[in-house]
Structure formats: structure tokens, C-alpha cells
């Protein structure tokens, strides 16, 4: 049993390494493009709403805390507490996605979608290209992150269902632990995304 637990945990860490690399590519691409269009990136990031970004950061940090508490409760066979903490975590994740939805629709409304949809600046404007590239990375990075949050919600719901059924206890709570690890990495990525996108310049 312990061997299975160790193996699963190792497998999860390896999977998380692939997640870091997945985002790593976009971070590197962002950095290189910022080197190429420094002024434009500075200008573009003013369109992002720092208050909403900061709010989402706090929400995710709090959800990480409730996730830790869920794992902790599961490891001590406290089914009720586990259920409550999981529900709070799921609600936080949904709140994050709702805020993200309002941010996105505002940007789309302003014509800030990248590439061929970029209408905020005239295509003759010398700053237009760099601004468009910024939003190319913005939507790719936050979109991929948002997808991970969404996947997290699905997995957390499944976990909740199994917890309600009483499947986990101090002797066996591997899935709770693994989902916890996943959830922390998704939070951690946002901790890097927020300053990079919202606070630069």
C-alpha cells in the first residue's frame, strides 16, 4: 500500500513537471517577445484590470489553503470537514472563472483579441503589432491556465462525490492528496502569471 502511494505520488510529480514545461514554453515566448517589443508590452498591460487580477490571486490562494485543509482532514478520516473544504475550494475555482469571464468579455469588446481580430489600434499604428503579440500571449497563457482551473473543477467534483460516498480515510486518501498537488501547481502558475502580465512596467 505504501509502495503504491509512493509510486502514485512520484507519478504525479512527474506529471506536474510536464505542466511546468507546458507553461514554460509560453513564459519563454513571452519573455523573448517582450525583449522585442518592450514599449508595446508596457502599453498593452495597462489594459489589464489589476484589481480583478489581484482579487483572483487572493481567491486562488485561499482555495489552496482550503485544499490543504481538505487533504489534512481526509488524512485524519474527518469526512464532514473534507466535504466542506472541497466545496469551498470548488466555489473559489468557479469564482475565479466568473471573474475571468468578465475580464475576457471586456477585452473582446474593446477589440483586444490578437492577430487578425486586433482592432483596438489601426493596423498602420507602429505600436499595433507589439500590442497584438502581447494579447496573443495573454490569451494563450490565461486561457491555458483557465482550462486547467476548469479541469480542476471537474476533478474536484469527482473527488467530492467519492468523499461523500465515504471512500477515503486515514488508511487511503491518495486521490485527495494527488488532486491537492495538482491544485497547488495550478495556483502556483497563476502566482507567476499575475505579476508577469498585470504588474510589469
Amino acid at each position, binding site marked *: 500500500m505504501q509502495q503504491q502511494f509512493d509510486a502514485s505520488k512520484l507519478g504525479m510529480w*512527474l506529471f506536474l513537471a510536464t505542466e511546468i514545461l507546458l507553461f514554460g514554453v509560453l513564459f519563454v515566448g513571452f519573455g523573448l517577445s517582450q525583449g522585442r517589443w518592450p514599449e508595446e508590452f508596457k502599453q498593452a498591460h495597462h489594459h489589464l484590470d489589476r484589481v480583478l487580477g489581484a482579487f483572483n490571486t487572493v481567491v486562488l490562494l485561499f482555495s489552496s489553503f482550503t485544499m490543504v485543509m481538505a487533504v489534512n482532514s481526509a488524512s485524519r478520516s474527518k469526512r464532514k470537514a473534507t466535504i466542506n473544504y472541497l466545496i469551498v475550494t470548488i466555489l473559489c475555482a468557479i469564482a475565479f472563472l466568473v471573474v475571468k469571464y468578465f475580464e475576457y468579455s471586456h477585452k473582446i469588446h474593446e477589440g483586444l483579441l490578437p492577430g*487578425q481580430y486586433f482592432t483596438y489600434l489601426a493596423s498602420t499604428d507602429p505600436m499595433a*503589432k507589439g500590442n497584438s503579440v502581447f494579447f*496573443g500571449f495573454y490569451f494563450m497563457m490565461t486561457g491555458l491556465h483557465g482550462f486547467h482551473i476548469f479541469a480542476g473543477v471537474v476533478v474536484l467534483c469527482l473527488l467530492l462525490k467519492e468523499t461523500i460516498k465515504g471512500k477515503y480515510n486515514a488508511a487511503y486518501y491518495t486521490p485527495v492528496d494527488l488532486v491537492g498537488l495538482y491544485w497547488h501547481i495550478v495556483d502556483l502558475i497563476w502566482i507567476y502569471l499575475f505579476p508577469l502580465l498585470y504588474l510589469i512596467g
Partner: protein
Amino acid sequence: MADILTSPHAGADVHHGKEIDYIEAKKGIWSWMSTVDHKRLGLMYFWAVVANFIVGGIFALLVRITLLTGNHGDNYFINAETYNRFFTLHGIVMVFLVIIPSVPAALGNFVLPLMLGAKDVAFPRMNLASFWIYIVGWTMAITAICLGMVDTGWTFYTPYSSTTNGPVSLMALAAFTLGFSSIFTGINFIATVHKLRAPGMGWFDMPLFVWSIYSTSLIQVLATPVVGITLVLLTIERAWGIGVFDASKGGDPVLFQHFFWFYSHPAVYIMILPGMAIISEIIPTFSAKTMFGYKAVAYSSVAIALIGFLVWGHHMFPSGQSQLASLVFSFLTFLVAIPSGIKVFNWLATMWRGNIAMDTPMVWAVSFLLLFTIGGLTGIFLGSLSTDIHLHDTYFVVAHFHYVMMGGTITAFLGGVHYWWPKMFGRMYNEGPAKIAAYLYFIGFNVLFLSQFVMGSNGMPRRYYNYLPEFQPWHIASTVGSWIIAAGLFLALGNLLASLRKPKDAPDNPWKGTTLEWQTQSPPIEHNFHDQPVLHRAPYDYRTPVSVDREIH
């Protein structure tokens, strides 16, 4: 061969009679489709790889037939666009559907847990998922082929790939999906090696096959996500034109090349390390001698995996990266030659004064040594900044990577198939035709690709449909070589298939191997071993007499 380990039933399972094996343990199609047995999954991968190899091979033959003449009229039966598709599909099928899964997923799945003395891999259900993801990716690739094919080359370079017609997005997503399968297999193997080694088996008691597959898995896990997200970016670029790779929208097409090669150069080692893994098993066994420099070979696998991440820029010397970057990449590329050289010299030293038996697997292994050495040395020409400017995108490159990928990995794969065939299927094949096939392959291979080295150094560019008349004799030689190889491969395949018609006659340990997979019956029982094997001695130990060997249980 030395007179040790002669008993086919050496080992713990000597006390048991033949028992029902993993192939016959359960019946029916569904028992295969839903199996979590690593041996059955290995077998299913194996047949998928063989089928794909035939498809990729047919595309290769068509490419070679097209190039019999360099001055095609308008009415030539293969036009230029079709030709572009043929070489693209040859590349994609061979890289993503054949070579990458060939050794790790097919043979690795079968052998790795046996070598570690484990009942299965660490995550058997994930192993099954990985197989079905491979099938999904395969289906997507085949659909893309049927929908009108792809003409970008296997490298999907932008801006061509983001503007050309055809189901490029589907093909890119197919490669993305296949990448997932490869990541899951990698994670599974790493966890297996860490957690499921037999009692008494320390890291330096593992067979070298395991070391190499472990290194391969590390690269699979760390590099594949990069190409995954890159291909997703390409697909989004094609669908919505977000402009990350489009210079007219402020993006950077060379960025694609960086991302692509950051994966695809390590992927070259994903392809060659498993080849080296097999050779490290065959050579000590058929030399009946302890592996020379075991630790050096083990470490060199890991070294190749790590250095492999630092050399991607050598694919881009003419792509407009800075001189300094090119210089550094060129230097780092030379570093790869060191661990590769260590391996080759250690294999040779293992053979030296060994009791060499030239059975079929050994014929393939020696072919590997010759072909891989040529491939490796010509790689140094290409890693050198100045010579690469001349040789870049010529047939010299084509010949080089075929010497490594086909002469290296496919040769080793075929050697491995002949080596483990008795274990996998419980039957001995006919040695005569098997050896003739190996020799035909070796001759055909050199006729095919040595001539391409000559053409390439004389300036014949790769991927061209037409060419100058002076190259025609070399092209004809090359095409004839492809027919010789095809003959060799069909003979090998036919010979192996013919053996399946016989009753199961293979002894447990036909080659007198010392690693654990030979200590169970052929084919193995469903749970591999009757009792948990405990390791009492290092691998490739041909000095310890048989009485000690019997203590393995």
C-alpha cells in the same frame, strides 16, 4: 559459449512445469482490448508498430521510385505535390508512429518489468490508457492522410505550415495526442524503475536496457510537453491567426523553430537511446562476457539525455540566430559525441576476447555498431558550424539521420525483436533466413544511404522533386538499395511470422542470458514470476557458476 547457465530452466521456476502463459491466460478480443498486462500491451504496440512501419516503408519506396529520374515531365505518374506529401508522410509515420513507440512502448513494455523482477509496471491502468491514446492519435493521423495528406515535412515549419492547405491542424493535433501517450509511458516507466525493482536490485544492478529506457523516459517527460504546446499554438495560428508565429502580425516564425527543436532534438535521443539499450543487452549476452565499463555506459545514457536538451540550435545555423548562439550550440553538440563514443568503445571492449556467437540478434547488433558509428561521426560534420553551412538541407543530412534513426534504432529494434522473440511468443525462428535477411538489410542500407552522402556533399538539396542529371546515377543506386532493404525486411518478417505456426518450442533461456527476464518461462506466465525474484548478483555476470545462479528466486 561458456558452459554456464546451460540449463534452460536455470532459476527459481525450475521447480514448476510449463504453466499456462500470458497469451493463453485469457481468451477473446475484449480480454486484449481491456488488458492491463504489460506483456499484452507490449505485444499490441508491437503489431501496431509493425503495421505502421509497413505504411511508412511504402511511402519511402514511393519517394525513391519518384527520384529514379530528375527530370519529370508534366505527365509523370507522381507529381511534385504528391511527392511532397509522400516524403512528409514517410517522416511523420516513421517518427511519431514507428520509431518513438518501437522500442520503449513495444519491447520496453514487454521486457522492462520482467528485467526488474516486477509483476507489472507501476500504473497498469495508465499503461492501457496510454495505448488507447496512441490509437486515437494514430486514427487522427490516418484520417489526415485520407483527407488529402499534409505537405509540410515532419517539422511543420512556419510560416509554410500556418498557411498551406490540407489537414495540417489535424496532423499537428495527432502528433500532440501521440505525445500524451508518450508522456504517460515515460511517467509509468520512471515510477516503475524507482519503486518496483526486485529486492536486492540496487541502481547499479539494473540491466543497462533499463538505464537507457529510464533516460529515454526522462526526455519523454521533460521535452514532449514543449512540442505539445507548440503544435497547439500552430493549430490556433491556423484556426484564428493570432499571429504568434506570423511576422506580419508582429510574431516570430523562428520562435517556432526554437520550440520545435527544443523538443525534437531531445526526441532524436528518445529515438536512439532505446536502440543503445538493446545493444547493451545483446552484446554481453552473445559475447558471454561481463559488460565492460558498466557504470560508464549507465551514466553515459543519462549524460546523453541531459546534454540533448542543450543542443537544439544546431538545427538552425542558417536560420538567423546570432553567431554567438551558433558557436555555443556547435560546441555543446560536440559534447554529445563523448558519451556516445564511450558507449561504442565499451561495446567493442565487451566483445574483445569474448566468446562471440554470431546468432541473428548479434548480426543485427554488429550491423548497428557499424551503421551507428557512421551516423554518429557524420553528425560531427553537421554539428561543426562551418561545414554545416555547406551541408545544411542537403542529402548529407538525410543520409546522416537515416544512419542514426534507421541504421541505429530500427536495426537495434530488429535485433531486439529477434532477441526477445522466443520470450514473447515462445517459439524459435529459423536462423538461416533470419541471418540472410539481416545481411540483405545491411547491404541494402549502405547502398541506399552511402550514395546519399556523396550526393549531399556534392550539393544535392533534400526534399527536391527535380535534380540535375549528374546526380542520377547516385539516385538510381539509392533506389536500388531501397529495394534490397525491402527484400531483407520482408524476409525477416515472413520468417518471424512463419515461426508462429509451429508449436511453442522455445526454451526459457535460449541465449544463456543473465538478466531476470530469462529466469521465467517462455512465454511468461500472467504474473511473470511464481515467486518474487531476489537478485544475488550483478547483471552480465558470466563468471559466477550455475549453482549460484540457482539461488535467484
